[in-house]
């Protein structure tokens, strides 16, 4: 049975990957430089980890 905690853990990688791609794409397109936006990755990672804890607590 997939649990919601498993789900959150499983989507962590893909979500980080998409965020990374998006940030670099923004950089290439001439928007905010990746050198400025990289902390978003840390935030995403933290949020996903936090979601895991929250989901874990619900069960």
């Amino acid at each position: 049975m997939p649990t919601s905690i498993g789900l959150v853990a499983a989507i962590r990688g893909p979500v980080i990957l998409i965020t990374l791609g998006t940030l670099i794409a923004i950089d290439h397109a001439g928007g905010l430089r990746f050198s400025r936006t990289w902390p978003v990755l840390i935030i995403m990672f933290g949020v996903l980890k936090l979601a895991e804890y929250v989901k874990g607590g619900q069960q």
Partner: protein
Amino acid sequence: MNPTENEQNLPLAPENAAKVEAETPKEPIVGYCRGTGKPLTSAEATYIKGVLYSKEYAEQAKLSEEPASPYAEPMVSVPKSTADISPGWAFVLGFIPGVGAIYNQQYAKGMFHIIVFASLISLIDRPGVGPFIGFLVMGWFLYMPFEAYHTAQRRQRGEAVDEMSGLVTMPAGMQKLPVGPILLIALGVLFLLDNLGLLRIDDLLRFWPVLLIVIGVVLLMQRIQGANGGVKEGSGNAN
């Protein structure tokens, strides 16, 4: 992704069998019995502790879902041969930020270690931070190998290790608190604001002694809890 890793915990035969059947319509051979080597169709196959057997053989050999003895119990998320794990190696690799944790197959923790290390390094030449950052970098640099060593030892002993476990045992009240993620988010927000010029980390760093106070308070809480009763002592070092 290694499929056996998931299947070890859960008897998955029905789903898997169904899936395979869908792909090859007639008399599909889903695998070979571990005991007899006989090719099996989905109807004959069964998974016992993640290993494929024929149903006949399983009955004969009295294999069942119930572990026969405590030694036969499948270990959770621990590789089959613990002999491969070397705490010494973990310690050495631990000096490279994140690598010690990766050696212990704790990728999230490895990333966390790298992020913290990089953040500290990037702050080192800011004016006004004093000796604080230097001590933190040294502290973190030493923490990582010891943590990796400790974790590797526990893995060697076959204990299950939580992915975000650390050396420091939190006081019982805070144990459920997701300190790592909160720290990460805070770090991320700080650096983002700093990068976008909305806030200066330099200004905030002047308040570093607050951290000492916080650590002091946490330690104090720990002491008080320790003094208050042996009841909670068992749960205190369960991590």
